[in-house]
Each structure stands twice: as structure tokens, then as C-alpha cells.
């Protein structure tokens, strides 16, 4: 069962993902925009684990659905789930769960390289498979061609993985009981 403490941390990471959407997107030299928002998924998985992290992102998806403009660029409302990017928002709870599940298997801090690997599997792998597959199916695209469209977004996501590894280590050092 979820304790009050669990509910508060779920709400906190849902809010943190929302707050990360407020940062203006950075445009990479390749012209691809990256937003900080998906770091919320990585941080939730790395810091509060599978169950709470997954529920935090599910809560975030609900907040967007009920009409709050919480997605990067001030987007929100039920329309998101009809749109091209729906697969990404819907992949986030699963991605946070998978990331958290990998981190949960460790007592204490995993090696930074291992942490990065976990974040790449959960925070990039799961999100790309669901998000881009959704886009391909909605548009009737060939999966292989779709992933060539997705490739330019990977460097930005790797930057977020590196930042999350450093931030998560710093936070866990300050609060070892997390």
C-alpha cells in the first residue's frame, strides 16, 4: 500500500516533471530542439524507484489530460492524447517504471556507467520504442524509416542522461535514505 510519504513523493515528481517543462527548449547545433521535460522521467526512475516513479509520471499524464498546460511549450489538455506526440507522454510512466526497476535492484549507488546504461534503457529505449512506434502506426509509416527520423534526437537525450547521472548521484549523497 502507498503511505502518505509515498503519495507526497509521487506528487512531487509529477510536479517536478511539470516544472522541467517550463524551461525553454535548447536547440542543438543540428537544429533539433531538446526540452528538459523528459529528465523528469529519468530523475523519477533513478531517485524514487519503479512503483513511485511510474505512478508519478502516470499522475503527470492525468494532470495534462485534465487540461493543465504542463507539457513543454505550454501544451496540455486531452487533445495531447489524440496528437502525434501522445506515444511519448504515454510511454513516460512505463519508462520511469522500467528505469526505477533497474535502479531498485541495486543497494546504494550504482557505478555512474551502470546508471547511465539504466537511464539509456529506460529513459531513451522505452520512450523511443513506444513514442516513435505510436507515431509510425498513427501515420502508417514504415518502422525502419521512422527510426531514421528519430536518430537526430538521440544526442540531446544522451546529454540528459549524463546530467541525470550527475544530479541523481548528488541528491543521493545528500539524502542517502531516499
Amino acid at each position: 500500500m502507498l503511505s502518505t510519504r509515498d503519495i507526497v513523493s509521487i506528487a512531487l515528481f509529477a510536479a517536478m516533471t511539470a516544472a522541467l517543462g517550463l524551461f525553454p527548449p535548447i536547440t542543438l547545433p543540428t537544429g533539433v530542439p531538446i526540452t528538459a521535460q523528459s529528465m523528469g522521467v529519468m530523475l523519477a526512475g533513478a531517485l524514487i524507484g519503479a512503483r513511485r516513479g511510474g505512478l508519478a509520471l502516470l499522475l503527470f499524464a492525468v494532470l495534462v489530460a485534465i487540461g493543465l498546460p504542463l507539457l513543454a511549450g505550454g501544451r496540455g489538455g486531452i487533445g495531447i492524447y489524440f496528437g502525434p506526440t501522445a506515444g511519448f507522454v504515454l510511454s513516460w510512466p512505463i519508462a520511469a517504471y522500467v528505469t526505477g526497476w533497474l535502479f531498485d535492484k541495486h543497494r546504494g549507488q550504482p557505478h555512474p556507467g551502470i546508471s547511465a546504461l539504466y537511464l539509456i534503457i529506460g529513459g531513451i529505449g522505452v520512450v523511443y520504442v513506444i513514442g516513435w512506434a505510436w507515431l509510425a502506426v498513427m501515420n502508417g509509416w514504415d518502422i525502419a524509416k521512422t527510426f531514421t527520423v528519430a536518430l537526430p534526437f538521440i544526442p540531446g537525450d544522451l546529454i540528459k542522461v549524463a546530467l541525470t547521472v550527475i544530479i541523481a548521484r548528488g541528491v543521493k549523497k545528500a539524502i542517502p535514505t531516499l
Partner: protein
Amino acid sequence: MFELYRPGNSFLHAMRPGAKLLALAAAGTGVFLLPGLPAIIAVMLAVLAIYAATGLGLATAWAQLRPVLLVFAILFAAQVFIAGWLTGAFFIARFATLLLLAGLLTLTTRVSDMVAAMEIGFQVLRPLGLNPSKISLALALALRFIPVLAQITGEVREAQRVRGLDGSIIAVAIPVIVRTLRMSDAIADAIEARGYNPDKA
């Protein structure tokens, strides 16, 4: 509280949120079944007529699409690359129509009314072991935390500016997360000290 709701007194504003959700689900499914570009454009014009009739206006309709123009541009380019421009136009028109339809629900329904409608819906989940009052508490807390996080981020950035570190994402993010996690412990204690028991509520 910031939200996308626009006050008004049209028939859509007066409709119950649950009924609007069902109508949106039906209309959204209908749009997916439309066969070609002319049909989509006809439906889009009808949806735009509703924007005009409800007093939301065409500027508001445009505002629904403006944030996703970049996404549309990327998608259209990819569509042309993969399937040709006519298919591209069809899919972009369909996405735009769906966004406009969904916008009608979001723009005419207060978040608080949606939450109230959802709480009724959550009762259905009770036999599955989900406690509606816990979901409500999590929703309310998350809404309250968003401005608090923005405020704490502002304070930490100011403190780091003194040290010349306000440009560093890491030097801002770590203290913000540590502070909010410590705060969340205190909040959980405060909620329980006031007699809240999630398993009995």
C-alpha cells in the same frame, strides 16, 4: 491557478464534463474513420464553426495549433519523405482537427470540474484496490507543488548567482531536488499529524 479554461456561457460551458468527455471520445473516433482529405477539411471547418459559435473565436482555435506548428512541420517533412505530400496533408489535417476538437473540451471545462468528474470515475477503480481519496490527495498536492518548485528554483538560482553558478544546471538542480525532498518529508508528517489516514479515508 493557471489553466487553459476560458470562461463563457455557451452550451459547451454548460454541458457536464463527463458528457463532454464521452462526446469527445465519439467525435475523435469518428475523425479517425474519415476516409480522405476533403472529408477531414469539412469536419475541421465544422469544428471551427463551433469555436465561433461558442464565443471562443478563431484566434483561440489558432492558439490551439500554434504550439504544435513545429511538430507539424517536422511530421510533414517526414511524411513527404516517407509517403508523399498528399498523405502528409491528410495526416496533418487529421491531427489538427483532433487537437481542435479536444481543445473544445479543455477550453470550456474548469480543472476543478474535471477533477470532480474524475473522482466519480475513480470510484469504479475501488474494487481494483485503488483508493480514490489517495488519487485525489496526489492530484491536489501535485497542483500545489508546481508553484512551490518554481519559487524554490528561483531562490536557489539567486543563491547560486552569488557564487557565479546560476548558469550551471547541475548546481541549481541538486539543491532544488534535495530541498523539495526534505520538504516533502515534512509535508507527509504534517498531513498525518492532522489525522489523515490514507487507508481509512
